[in-house]
């Protein structure tokens, strides 16, 4: 059988991390991703199944539940992405979305300033605390934005948008760096 070489979603545009000014972007390899949408009234049962299999609860809006390298990200009304493990609980619609998403991490002192050029989301820590996630816009794209440390954000977009995300981010990074050097 042919041995196919799997490329990560941002491989062509971001083969290695890029540092511009006081920010850095790197691809995050998500591994297995399952979209989970509990049927009406089944959220508790789904949480129990997810807890038993992967140690995480079904997340509330804006929440990320985490256990080791597994996390569940709230991505819409009644919907979550389970990342880092594969669980298909009864009582929920599930689809395998591994390789369907492109994730980048943006970090550094100016990460917030860079992101503020691309998203209308209120990024102040009081409004967007550590380990909170939000569905929002990054440039013209819908995206999931998660604050993974004080100065690190993870941005997840459709895999087909990988090129645009890298382009938009590196441009904003350049602009922030140029202003800082004035």
């Amino acid at each position, binding site marked *: 059988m042919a041995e196919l070489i799997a490329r990560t979603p941002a491989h062509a545009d971001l083969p290695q991390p890029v540092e511009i000014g006081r920010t850095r972007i790197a691809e995050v390899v998500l591994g297995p991703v399952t979209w989970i949408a509990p049927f009406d009234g089944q959220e508790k049962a789904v949480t129990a199944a997810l807890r038993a299999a992967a140690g995480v609860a079904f997340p509330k*809006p804006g929440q990320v539940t985490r256990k080791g390298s597994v996390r569940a990200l709230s991505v*819409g*009304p009644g919907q979550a992405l389970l990342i880092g493990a594969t669980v298909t609980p009864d009582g929920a619609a599930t689809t395998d979305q591994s390789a369907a998403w492109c994730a980048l991490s943006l970090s550094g002192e100016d990460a917030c300033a860079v992101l503020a050029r691309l998203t*209308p989301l*209120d990024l102040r820590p009081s409004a967007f605390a550590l380990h909170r996630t939000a*569905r*929002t*816009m990054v440039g013209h794209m*819908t995206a999931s934005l998660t604050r993974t440390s004080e100065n690190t954000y993870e941005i997840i977009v459709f895999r087909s948008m990988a090129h645009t995300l890298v382009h938009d981010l590196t441009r904003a990074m350049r602009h922030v760096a140029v202003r800082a050097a004035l």
Partner: protein
Amino acid sequence: MRLTCPHCGERDLREFAARGSAVVLSRPSAGASAEEWADYLHIRDNPAGEARDLFYHTPCGLWIEVTRSTITHAVIAARPVREAKP
């Protein structure tokens, strides 16, 4: 303008698509007259005061019915369209 998505919380208008009057939620019944259909499709109130409009929160996919004032621009309420009317 800031709108409150019932799922995501308060967000900037840029995240929403304005989809017109919420009157489109009240579709005429199957046997409705041509006049009722014409009203439904073409006739819109232009209230000075409380108006009900549909917005789509693009990043999360929720349709919401927003009650707002066309005089003060105050946003009074927002509810998910998929839930039954209160």
